[in-house]
C-alpha cells in the first residue's frame, strides 16, 4: 500500500495565549511512500518525526493537508478504521494479559463480517508469532520477557490484523546495543517477508541508514531531505543533514573560495570550478582524507586510534569547527605516523561545500 502525504502540517496551539507562540510540529510535509518499502523518519529529538508518525496513524489529526493510503483519503478516519499497526516506543503490551492474549486482542475487537472464529484467531496468532519467533513464549506475561522479546510481541500484535501500514515509534531505543543490531536485522527480515509498507521513527542515524529503503531527515518540523540512505549520506543538501548523518561525524571547517581555489585556513586544498568567491563551510567525511607527506592540509597530530583494518587519526587544525578532526585511514598507509604534524590530501568527491549564511550545499566541478 503506498502512502501519500500532501502538505501535511500539525500546529499545537500555544498554552500561553498571550505569547501566541504556536508550536509547529510538522510543517508542509510532502512525501509519497512507495508500496512495500521500509522508510525511516530520522531527526533529532523534538523535530516532529513522532508527530508525523502519529498523523499517519491517526492518533493525531493534521492541522492542514491530506493523507492517502493508496487511493483512499484517510485524513478524517480514526486510527481503527485506517488499518494500521502501531508499535509503541515502550511497546504498550497489556501487562495483565499473556503474550497470546496480547496478540489476540486486536482480533477480538473485530466486528460484523470481519469477525473470526476462535480457532481462526488462534491460528492467526500462531502464524504471526512464528513469524517473529516468539511461538515458544505464548503463555508468558510481558513482565517475564526480555526487552527484545517484548519488542517482538509488540510487532506481532501490530501485524496480526494484517495492517495496510506498519508504524514503529523508536522501535529499538529501549534495547541494549547488541540486541539493537540483532533486532534491526529482524525488523528488516519481517518487513521483507510480509511486504507491508513500514514507517519507523528513530533518532539514531546508523539505525535508519542500515535498514531503510528510504530515509527522511527532519528538523524542526521541516523535511530536510528524502532519499536512499547512501544518496543522502553522499549528497546531503545542507550542513544539518551532513552533520546529522555519518558515524564518526563529518569534519566541518570554515574556509573560503578564492579564484577557483578552496582554502581551509591558509591551506589551499583543492582546485574547484564554478563557485564564486565567498566564505564557506567545508565538510569532509572521515574517509575523505588521504595521508600524504606533501598534502595541502596541514594538521597537528593528536593521537592515532588503531581499529584493526583501519586507523583513526585524531588531529587538530585552526580552521576546524570541531575540537578535533577525525580521519579514517588504511592501517598500512598510516605506518609511519610519528611526527607531530600530519598532512592530508582531500578526496574531491568527499568534500562538501556549504554556504556560510544559508548552510545550503554548494556544488562544484573539479
Amino acid at each position: 500500500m503506498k502512502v501519500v502525504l500532501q502538505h501535511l502540517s500539525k500546529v499545537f496551539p500555544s498554552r500561553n495565549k498571550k505569547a501566541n507562540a504556536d508550536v509547529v510540529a510538522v510543517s508542509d510535509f510532502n512525501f509519497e511512500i512507495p508500496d512495500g518499502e521500509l522508510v525511516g523518519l530520522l531527526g533529532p529529538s523534538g523535530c516532529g518525526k513522532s508527530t508525523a508518525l502519529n498523523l499517519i496513524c491517526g492518533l493525531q489529526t493534521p492541522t492542514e493537508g491530506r493523507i492517502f493510503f493508496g487511493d483512499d483519503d484517510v485524513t478524517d478516519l480514526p486510527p481503527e478504521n485506517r488499518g494500521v499497526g502501531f508499535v509503541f516506543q515502550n511497546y504498550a503490551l497489556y501487562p495483565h494479559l499473556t503474550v497470546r492474549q496480547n496478540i489476540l486482542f486486536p482480533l477480538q475487537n473485530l466486528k460484523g463480517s470481519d469477525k473470526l472464529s476462535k480457532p481462526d484467531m488462534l491460528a492467526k496468532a500462531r502464524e504471526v508469532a512464528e513469524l517473529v519467533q516468539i511461538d515458544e513464549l505464548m503463555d508468558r506475561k510481558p513482565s517475564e520477557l526480555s526487552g527484545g522479546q517484548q519488542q517482538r510481541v509488540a510487532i506481532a500484535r501490530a501485524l496480526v490484523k494484517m495492517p495496510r501500514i506498519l508504524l514503529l515509534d523508536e522501535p529499538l531505543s529501549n534495547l541494549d546495543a547488541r540486541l539493537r543490531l540483532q533486532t534491526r536485522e529482524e525488523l528488516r527480515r519481517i518487513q521483507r517477508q510480509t511486504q507491508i509498507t513500514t514507517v519507523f521513527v528513530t533518532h539514531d542515524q546508523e539505525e535508519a541508514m542500515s535498514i531503510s529503503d528510504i530515509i527522511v531527515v527532519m528538523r524542526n518540523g521541516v523535511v530536510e531531505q528524502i532519499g536512499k540512505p547512501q544518496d543522502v549520506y553522499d549528497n546531503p543538501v545542507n550542513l544539518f543533514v551532513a552533520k546529522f548523518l555519518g558515524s564518526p561525524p563529518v569534519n566541518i571547517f570554515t574556509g573560503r573560495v578564492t579564484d577557483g581555489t578552496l582554502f581551509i585556513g591558509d591551506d589551499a586544498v583543492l582546485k574547484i570550478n564554478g563557485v564564486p568567491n565567498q566564505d564557506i563551510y567545508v565538510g569532509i567525511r572521515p574517509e575523505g582524507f588521504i595521508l600524504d607527506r606533501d598534502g595541502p592540509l596541514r594538521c597537528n597530530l593528536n593521537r592515532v586510534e588503531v581499529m584493526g583494518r583501519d586507523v583513526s587519526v585524531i588531529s587538530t587544525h585552526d580552521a576546524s569547527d570541531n575540537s578535533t578532526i577525525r580521519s579514517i585511514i588504511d592501517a598500512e598507509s598510516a605506518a609511519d605516523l610519528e611526527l607531530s604534524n600530519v598532512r592530508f590530501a582531500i578526496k574531491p568527491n568527499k568534500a562538501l561545500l556549504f554556504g556560510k549564511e544559508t548552510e545550503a550545499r554548494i556544488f562544484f566541478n573539479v
Partner: protein
Amino acid sequence: MDKRNNKGWLYLLPAVLFLGFFMVYPLVDVFIYSFEEGYNSASQTYFGVGSYNYSYVLHDPYFLQAVKNTFILVIITVPVSTGAALLISAGLNSIKALKKLYQTVYFLPYVTNTLAVGLVFMILFKKTAYTDGLINLFINWFGGGSVDFIDGPYWAKMFVLCFYTIWIVMPFKVLILTSALASVNPQYYNAAKVDGTSKIRTFTRITLPMISPMIFYLIITGFIGAFKAYSDAVALFGTDLNAAEMNTIVGYIYDMLYGNSGGYPSYASAAAIILLILVLTVTCINSLISKKHIYY
C-alpha cells in the same frame, strides 16, 4: 550475615514496644476478659472462667440484630459505593472542562463532619409534626405516600443508613480511583484505539485490570470500615440504637461498656472477639480472591 545480631532487635525495639503495648497487649487482654465471667474492671474480680460470655452474647437478640444490621450494611454499601465511585471517577477522568471543580465537589463530604452530614440527612428524611421532609415531598410528588425514614419501618431506616454510609465513604474512593485512573499510561489507550477496541471493552479489559490493586484495596478497607460502623448510625438515630433496631456490632460493644445498660466488659470483650473473627475471615477471603484476580 550473623543471624544472632542483637543490634537488629535494638532497632526494632521502639516499634515492638509501641505495637506490643497498644495493640498486642489489649488484644490479649480483651481475649482473656472474654472468657472471664462477670469481670469487674474496678475491683478486677470475676466469678469464673468459661465460654458463658460468648453464649450470652450469641443468644442476645440485640446482638443478633446488630450482626444482621452490620451484615446488611456491609453487603450493600461496599459494592454500591465502590461501583458508584468507579463510575464517577471514570466520568471525572474523561471530562476536561470543570474537572477540578467536580473533583472538589465530590471530595467535599470527606472533609465534612459526620454529625453535620447526619443533621442534613435528618432534614432531608425526618418526618416531623410540621413537615414530612424533602425526600417525602418528592415521593408525594410522584404519587407515593410519606414514609418515616428515621422512626419508621425497618427497611426505611436501613435505606437511610446505607445511603448515608455510601455518601460518607464515597469521596475517599473517588479520590483514590481518580488518581489510579490518571496513573494508567495513556499509551495503553492509544494502543487499544489503534486496535479498534470499543470504549466498553477498553474499560473492562484494560482500565479495570490496571487499577485492580486499588479497587481491591478499597473493597478490603471498605469491608473493614463497614464492619466497624457505629458513628453513622448514631448520627442518624441517636444513641439509643437498640430501641431503634439500628444497632451495629461496634454499637453493641459500646453499649455493653458504657451505655445505659452498660457495665459488662466481659460481654463487650466477647462481642469484640466475635467481630475480630468476622473481620479477619472476610479479609482473608478477600485477599484469597484478590490474589487470583489482581494484577500488580
